[in-house]
């Protein structure tokens, strides 16, 4: 693996995004627009304060998952992946290149949604801002990593987008948003315990509510980061130099 190649890959992906302004606009604006919509639908500062962090959790994950799975699927089907595999590019160069590029995109996305929420929409944080940003970015990275992994199991873009609900909806249902995790049937709670989003949502709740996020926050952060690394490594295993 080489830093030069990783950064060249990041630059290439950012350039691809630059040529596709509509995707960038959708990526950056949609979470903020949904946030504004949520504010007016709730019409209640307390309820908004409870739901806003969940959206800040779900959106970076969702968008990065979708974009990465389509982008890497294209890379696989257009032959550019095969070309890169015949060149001195390490598999991690490619994966980290994607992670960095889409991580940057996630930064912009989260920054705008947060700025609007904290000013116009009056979201109130008792503690510092950085825990919230950290969790949102980790979620974006997790989305990128899982998107890479899932793209290996899709042959077409139609199949790739269908992975989104499979990966997303169970994590939201079991993540403790609708029903607290402790109230679920034992089996469901076990499943919930192994889904990274459960920890992401919990971490986000701490980030928003605590004045000084402590041990539990860090445990959740480590779990989410660990899941992202695991998904990235599994994704790397699906990239093969030789194919049949």
């Amino acid at each position, binding site marked *: 693996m080489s830093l030069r190649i990783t950064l*060249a890959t990041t630059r290439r992906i950012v*350039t691809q995004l630059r*040529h596709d302004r509509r995707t960038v606009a959708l990526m950056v604006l949609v979470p903020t627009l949904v946030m504004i919509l949520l504010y007016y639908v709730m019409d209640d500062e307390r309820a908004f304060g409870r739901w806003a962090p969940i959206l800040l959790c779900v959106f970076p994950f969702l968008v990065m998952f979708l974009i990465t799975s389509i982008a890497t699927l294209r890379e696989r089907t257009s032959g550019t992946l095969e070309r890169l595999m015949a060149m*001195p590019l390490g598999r991690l160069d490619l994966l980290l290149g994607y992670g960095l590029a889409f991580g940057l995109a996630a930064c912009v996305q989260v920054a705008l949604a947060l700025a609007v929420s904290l000013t116009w929409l009056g979201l109130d944080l008792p503690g510092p801002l950085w825990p919230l940003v950290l969790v949102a970015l980790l979620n974006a990275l997790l989305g990128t990593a899982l998107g890479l992994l899932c793209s290996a199991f899709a042959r077409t873009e139609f199949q790739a987008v269908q992975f989104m609900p499979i990966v997303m909806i169970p994590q939201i249902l079991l993540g403790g948003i609708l029903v607290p995790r402790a109230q679920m049937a034992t089996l469901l709670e076990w499943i919930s315990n192994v889904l990274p989003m459960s920890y992401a949502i919990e971490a986000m709740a701490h980030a928003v509510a605590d004045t000084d996020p402590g041990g539990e926050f860090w445990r959740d952060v480590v779990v989410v980061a660990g899941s992202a690394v695991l998904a990235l490594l599994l994704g790397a295993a699906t990239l093969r*130099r030789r194919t049949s």
Partner: protein
Amino acid sequence: MDPAIVVRDLRVSRGGVEVLHGLTFAVPRGQVTGLLGPSGCGKTTLMRAIVGVQVVGDGEVTVLGEPAGSAGLRRRIGYSTQSPAVYRDLTVLENLRYFAAVLGAPKDDPERVLAEVGLADAAHQLASTLSGGQLGRAGLAVALLGRPEVLVLDEPTVGLDPVLRQELWTLFHRLAEGGVTILVSSHVMDEAARCERLIVLREGEILADDTPDGLRAHTRTTDLEEAFLRLIEERAAA
């Protein structure tokens, strides 16, 4: 001098069907070798095996003295696929700059290879807006980055007008004179005459491995298309 590429008893299966049935041949250094045969005869699979991106069932493929697919070969082989593997949402130059960075090629290499394939005018065009022929040349340009010692080119002249085709063949010969080994596939027989050596492939087997003159003499015809037909008849009779 050792041959650039040595293939021994190469067997490859795709989707449970054997498509290459134990091929053995060598590709000499510093020459243009044509890999000829109809569509579906296994040319692309063979080229993928040489580049080291194909899962191989049995046999050996050695390139420049190293097993195909070795990490050390990845800078020394240039490969262009039949459907041009470039990013359609980047300009031609952006594509070349990226691949040049991956290869660690000199900074001015993208401009050099663009001029070599005659695509300098389209440097700032998005790849998605190129014609089929231009796209093919963009893919070829990527293969030329970093001055590789071996070039494996899968149907590089498809869809080009005769003038461009002539120019590319001149380029191939110029590179070969400079010591580059070129393996170029084609399903068009009239291109065979431009090669110094020919490997004729049909249904995953080698029909002939000869010079164009040797092939004409062996089949007692001056026309290479006719020679191909006679080779098939000869094989059927045997």
